[in-house]
């Protein structure tokens, strides 16, 4: 039975439409797989009753004959999405016990399309982290291992639960969110596809905010085709998010022709980082050859401000986070600290936030507070926003020269061991986002596609960056890369 959970969205859709498979069977298989994989710590709030009710409704709709593509597809939902009546904690103790009275726009659209919610997925606290080690639910474990070594590896972060769940076939696909690489880095670490759409493509309403000018939700799936199908259901204008774009949502799947003849693919020289492992360099070169062999024109490009993306990000994101997270004050939702005799409202705020936030969140809130404080606002925050303008211009300049997409590595390494970065200084962990963070700063769509294994047997991914609003074209280039790379490896089951 659990074999069914290995299906992707497209295969399951086709089988259900033909009547060869029911959503109830598929959902039961996923629920079983989740039960058997508790050790991965990917699902943290299970919703089997909701899932079965939705699956039955989906089957009835499928019988009607005009069910949408996502109808009956069992999904995992990152804990950052507010789901009505179901715990939504953003991986934080400060939202302990919080059950939203409303549903995020994206999840509502998925349920309207007939999808099935299996439960909520673990993540780094408030999406701040690159290894899923900052969650109040504990670490997520990557289903991949280094050969026969049984050391536990990180699935990456912050969408680590989503990555682990999709890679281990606990669900057909999952939602993720990406502020600096939080969809693409974990997707690369577990050998799946992860798409961050153009900023404004998907509504942020009901998604717990980290850095509002950078946050964007997207699909994490077993194939590029699945990403196209799921993005279509997630995307669209939402009057409740003033930054969501009033643009028609195209049929992304229809864009997947695999034909990229004549497309111009840029290879940015600044992404050749010092100390980059040879295997990453080799994979990047192989990916370049694959696209060339598929008929694309390869051009060397320069994105001169790349080096400054990470420091700019680590000003802008914490600044926005310190403002967004001010709402966690122990008054309206979540945790409130027990107070001592004589404590006033300031002590309530300070104790509640000290108890409720983990160390990384505290650090970022305080950094954000500092860079926004009087006397430093210009030196840090305004300067970072100016550098951000320059980073975006770098991309505009190469797109103006006719470049259709940019190929880069997705991550500077394969998945590392849980705890291995424990004694590193926080900046070392931030370097995980070195190839992905530019895309958020420029608001562009980016996709991580699994492209090979390293010599330890761990997956490595490549990233394609596209023009704004041209996810269809980007997905098609990713589809061509996926076909050429032919990555079919799965983690061997040990759990």
């Amino acid at each position, binding site marked *: 039975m659990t074999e069914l959970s290995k299906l992707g969205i497209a295969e399951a859709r086709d089988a259900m439409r033909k009547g060869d498979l029911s959503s109830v069977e598929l959902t039961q298989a996923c629920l079983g797989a989740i039960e058997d994989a508790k050790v991965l710590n990917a699902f943290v709030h299970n919703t089997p009753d909701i899932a079965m009710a939705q699956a039955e409704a989906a089957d009835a709709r499928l019988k009607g004959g005009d069910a949408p593509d996502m109808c009956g597809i069992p999904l995992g939902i990152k804990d950052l999405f507010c789901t009505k009546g179901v715990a939504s904690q953003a991986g934080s103790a400060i939202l302990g016990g*919080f*059950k*939203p*009275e*409303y549903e995020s726009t994206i999840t509502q659209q998925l349920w309207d399309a007939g999808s099935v919610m299996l439960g909520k997925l673990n993540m780094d606290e408030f999406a701040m982290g690159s290894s899923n080690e900052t969650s109040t639910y504990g670490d997520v474990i990557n289903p991949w291992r280094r050969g026969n070594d049984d050391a536990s590896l990180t699935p990456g972060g912050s969408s680590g639960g989503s990555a682990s769940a999709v890679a281990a076939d606990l669900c057909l696909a999952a939602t993720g969110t990406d502020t600096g690489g939080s969809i693409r880095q974990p997707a690369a670490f577990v050998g799946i596809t992860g798409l961050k759409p*153009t*900023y*404004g493509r998907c509504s942020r309403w009901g998604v717990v905010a980290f850095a509002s*000018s950078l946050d964007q939700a997207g699909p994490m799936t077993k194939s590029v085709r699945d990403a196209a199908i799921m993005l279509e259901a997630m995307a669209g204008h939402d*009057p409740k998010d*003033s*930054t969501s*774009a009033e643009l028609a949502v195209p049929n992304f799947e229809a864009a997947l022709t695999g034909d990229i003849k004549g497309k111009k693919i840029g290879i940015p020289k600044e992404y050749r980082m010092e100390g980059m492992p040879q295997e990453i360099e080799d994979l990047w070169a192989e990916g370049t050859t694959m696209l060339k062999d598929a008929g694309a024109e390869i051009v060397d490009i320069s994105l001169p*401000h790349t*080096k*400054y993306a990470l*420091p700019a990000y*680590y*000003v802008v994101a914490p600044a926005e986070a*310190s403002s967004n997270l001010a709402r966690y004050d122990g*008054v*309206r*939702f*979540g*945790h409130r600290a027990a107070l001592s005799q004589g*404590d*006033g*409202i*300031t002590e*309530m*705020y*300070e*104790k509640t*936030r*000290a108890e409720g*936030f983990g160390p990384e969140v*505290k*650090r970022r809130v*305080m*950094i954000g*507070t*500092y860079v926004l*404080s009087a006397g430093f606002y210009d030196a*840090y925050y*305004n*300067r970072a*926003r*100016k*550098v*951000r*303008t*320059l980073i*975006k211009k770098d991309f505009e300049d190469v797109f103006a020269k006719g470049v259709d997409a940019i190929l880069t590595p997705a991550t500077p390494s394969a998945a590392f061991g849980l705890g291995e970065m424990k004694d590193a*200084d*926080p*900046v070392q962990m*931030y370097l995980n986002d070195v190839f992905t963070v530019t895309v958020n*700063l420029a*608001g562009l769509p980016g996709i991580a596609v699994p492209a090979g294994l390293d010599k330890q047997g761990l997956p490595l991914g490549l990233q394609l960056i596209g023009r*704004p609003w041209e996810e269809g074209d980007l997905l098609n280039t990713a589809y061509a890369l996926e076909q050429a790379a032919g990555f079919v490896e799965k983690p061997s089951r040990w759990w």
Partner: protein
Amino acid sequence: MSGAIKTESFMSIDKETARRVAKLARISVPDEDLPVLAGELTGILNFMEQLNEVDVDGVDPMTSVTPMRLKRREDVVTDGSQQEAVLANAPDAREGFFAVPKVVE
């Protein structure tokens, strides 16, 4: 501007500054944890010092990553009458209000 600032330890956060930032952020930090916090914050800020190498003269700070005007709508009530839902998750709600410790002395 870019040449005027020495990048090495331009900004070092001392214990008192760490205490002040924690206070501004409304996060209580025990005294004994302040030196470690100050060290971490200094490390992160030093990483940001690289931004001083960039010539940003005449560059506008980014306000919106996509070239769109923020939408406006009629200033009318579109939602409401959800007192119960609004209070449902409050750690302490009484008689239709959020309850907090005494604010006024």
